[in-house]
């Protein structure tokens, strides 16, 4: 009974994350539009786009293998699975927590989704897909180890890689009080989040210029419901990254039980955190140009160095 209730809660908060994913994108788009003195599309536009794609038929390249059809579903599945590993509203301390996976599995699943996406892009045989895949894997190579290190720098102090435990303990453990390594790790995570969510200065999600694309280049061969799956996976990945940053560094307001007041407070805290982080992404995207592709490693190197320093400081 206890387990069923716990699983119910975990699934409920994971579902909430998937449902909110497109809204975060809609909010960033709206913010960007307002900063450019445009009215912009409605906050709900990403949901409408998904509904539109789901209604459409699928067109597939002749050179694509049958595996190509499975790619969107697998990418979505890998990404959605990560949502159960995060503290969204509840972070029960202690044994009440079921082992649903930890930060290592979360990052590995995101890497798997990236890999599948790249394989799909190569499978279809288009030139843009290949270029997008090659660039995305280059970025992945730099982002993934750095993100691991940033997460570990917190996990080392918390004594666990389970994100829910980490978040629940953060307020209690003196070792997890804000210290210099946290600042470095947070900075590293913010830099890496820009790359991981496919935003300026690393990638431009709004472009129609195929030659410049990273993530979008890999999606060009997908259409209809398959594209909807991948787009939903992209929205989900974005909110997962933001929630990960929030769980590691700002685990405030998370509920322990299921009192309505607690839940309401946790919901408010979740919105506030997502709002702040999405505003950060939107502001950066409106203030900078996209980097020259060969400058991206320098930019991500900054994240890598900070993550490394954070981990080294924590261990020493």
């Amino acid at each position, binding site marked *: 009974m206890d387990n069923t209730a716990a699983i119910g809660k975990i699934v409920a908060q994971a579902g909430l994350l998937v449902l909110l994913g497109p809204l975060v994108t809609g909010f960033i788009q709206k913010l960007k539009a307002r900063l*450019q003195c445009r009215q912009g599309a409605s906050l709900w536009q990403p949901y409408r786009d998904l509904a539109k794609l789901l209604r459409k038929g699928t067109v597939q390249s002749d050179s694509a293998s049958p595996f190509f059809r499975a790619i969107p579903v697998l990418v979505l599945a890998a990404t959605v699975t990560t949502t159960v590993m995060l503290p969204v509203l509840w972070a029960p301390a202690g044994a009440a927590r079921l082992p649903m996976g930890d930060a290592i599995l979360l990052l590995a699943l995101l890497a798997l989704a990236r890999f599948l996406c790249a394989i799909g892009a190569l499978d279809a045989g288009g030139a843009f897909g290949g270029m997008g895949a090659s660039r995305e894997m280059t970025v992945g190579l730099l982002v993934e180890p750095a993100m691991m290190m940033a997460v570990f720098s917190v996990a080392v102090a918390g004594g666990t890689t389970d994100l829910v435990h980490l978040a629940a303990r953060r307020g209690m453990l003196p070792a997890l009080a804000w210290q210099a390594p946290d600042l470095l790790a947070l900075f590293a995570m913010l830099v890496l989040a820009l790359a991981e969510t496919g935003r300026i200065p690393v990638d431009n999600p709004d472009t129609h*210029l195929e030659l410049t694309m990273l993530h979008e280049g890999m999606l060009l061969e997908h259409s209809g419901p398959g594209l909807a799956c991948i787009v939903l996976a992209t929205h989900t990945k974005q909110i997962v990254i933001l929630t990960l940053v929030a769980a590691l560094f700002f685990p405030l307001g998370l509920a322990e039980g299921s009192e309505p007041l607690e839940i309401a407070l946790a919901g408010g805290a979740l919105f506030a955190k997502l709002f702040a982080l999405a505003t950060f992404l939107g502001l950066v*995207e409106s203030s900078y*140009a996209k980097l020259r592709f060969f400058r991206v490693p320098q930019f991500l190197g900054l994240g890598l160095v900070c993550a490394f320093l954070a981990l080294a400081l924590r261990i020493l």
Partner: protein
Amino acid sequence: MPPLHGLEERLASWAEFERGPRPQDLTVRLKRVEDVPAAVAELCAAGMALASLVATDEEATADRDLKLRYVFEPASHSLRPLPDMFVTLLASLDPARPELPSIAVEVPAANWHEREAQDLFGIVFSGHPDPRPLVVHDGWPKGLYPLRKRFAAGQRPPVEPGEEFPHLLVEGEGVLEVPVGPIHAGIIEPGHFRFSTVGESVLNLEARLFYTHRGLEKRIEGMTTIDAFHVAERVCGVCSVAHGLGFCEAAEQIAEIEMPVRARGLRTLALELERLYNHLGDIGNIAAGASYHYGTSAGLRMKEAIQQVGERLTGNRFLRGLLVPGGVRFDLSAELARSIEAAMAATAEALASLMERIENNPTVIDRLDTTGLLSLPDAIALGMTGVGARASGVDRDARRDHPHAAYGTASDLNVTVVTESDGDVHARLNVRAAEARESMRLVRALLASLPSGPLRVPMPEALPPWRIGLAAIESPRGAAIHWLRSDSAGRVDRYHLRSASYANWPAVPLAAQSSIIPDFPLVNKSFELCYSCTDR
């Protein structure tokens, strides 16, 4: 004609000379077509540059030949200040065997001109380094030359099974071919770009255009001046005023009509508004190429404001409908003049603010600097014109070098030509911004001192027969050369437009080869060339 002193003596053994088409121009009639390369070399040595190449089919006339007219204009520093004149080198070809030596190796600017004449007239340029078809695409029947007079414009030729176009192949380990277009993701016109790349660097780029060749030059033949004008005005959307004006000036030259001063002023006003909205939009497009969202929106916003005052002046967002052969159709009211004045003030402020933001944003500047380099010798060899040429240091502007409309008629209507020397995207952006400021100054000067007088003078229904009009107009993308000849009935016998984009397109692949693939859209947008001006 002091700058070209001695040219006539040097060419005397090969040619006859006459004045024309305009009183200050010179026409050199070659006795033998084999002498074309030698005569071209003499003209180039004298500091002239090829502006246009016009082929005409005169089989039905007394001459019974095909004629090629190499139109040259002064270009070299040694001739400065550049005199407003054209030298036309005239070669007569046997219609049964139209063949002559190519000059494309010595004069790269002639490359496309010769290939176009080869496709549309069947003229063979022996020794051309790249005789692949340019204008006609796969499937066009061999031996059918649409600009020959005996080709009936109404016919629908059968499509022959075409071979695949022989693109230049780059071979070697790791070389990847990336085909882009002709259908693109944005709302732009068709063009095929074939990149040969290793990793992200571009080894070679071939651009194939002319997917929507409309045969406008053929369509216009036999039309009355006014009908033909409407076609010429619509060659391209964003150069409507420039192309319309070029046709008008050529036709008015033939009809020997003196334009009233107020009409000249209003035409200049429209031309500058057109340049202004193009340059402002292009600045936004460069920002879009660098993914600098704020700049994109700011550019679009400024362009929109200018297009809206333009619509109030002409009734059309693309400023069509104001010009007409013989003058202009609408007057400028005092109220509208105040609106334009206000739009200039607002735009000047917005442009200054945008350029300041761009210059102070290191991420944007890093994208623009050293991207898409084009050297001065390359720009000169390709015969480039307009912003792209001036950003590489070519000090040419048809508004100063071939004064038209009201330019140069008053001291404050003298155009200050802006040049940069770096030849990169940043230089092209800076030239655009400076020219936009100069356009605003010219608009203000025009509004302040617009002379009164009639708006138009009567234009004869039929032009005087067999006369040539030649006009160079500085369109937003550079100098466009209009060549017009009337037939025996006073209608259009032949009209040829060498648009600025036509002259500049070959520079884009060259500039792209110094960049990486993801920078190509930025390089392309920094030239911002037009497809329809090319696919006439």
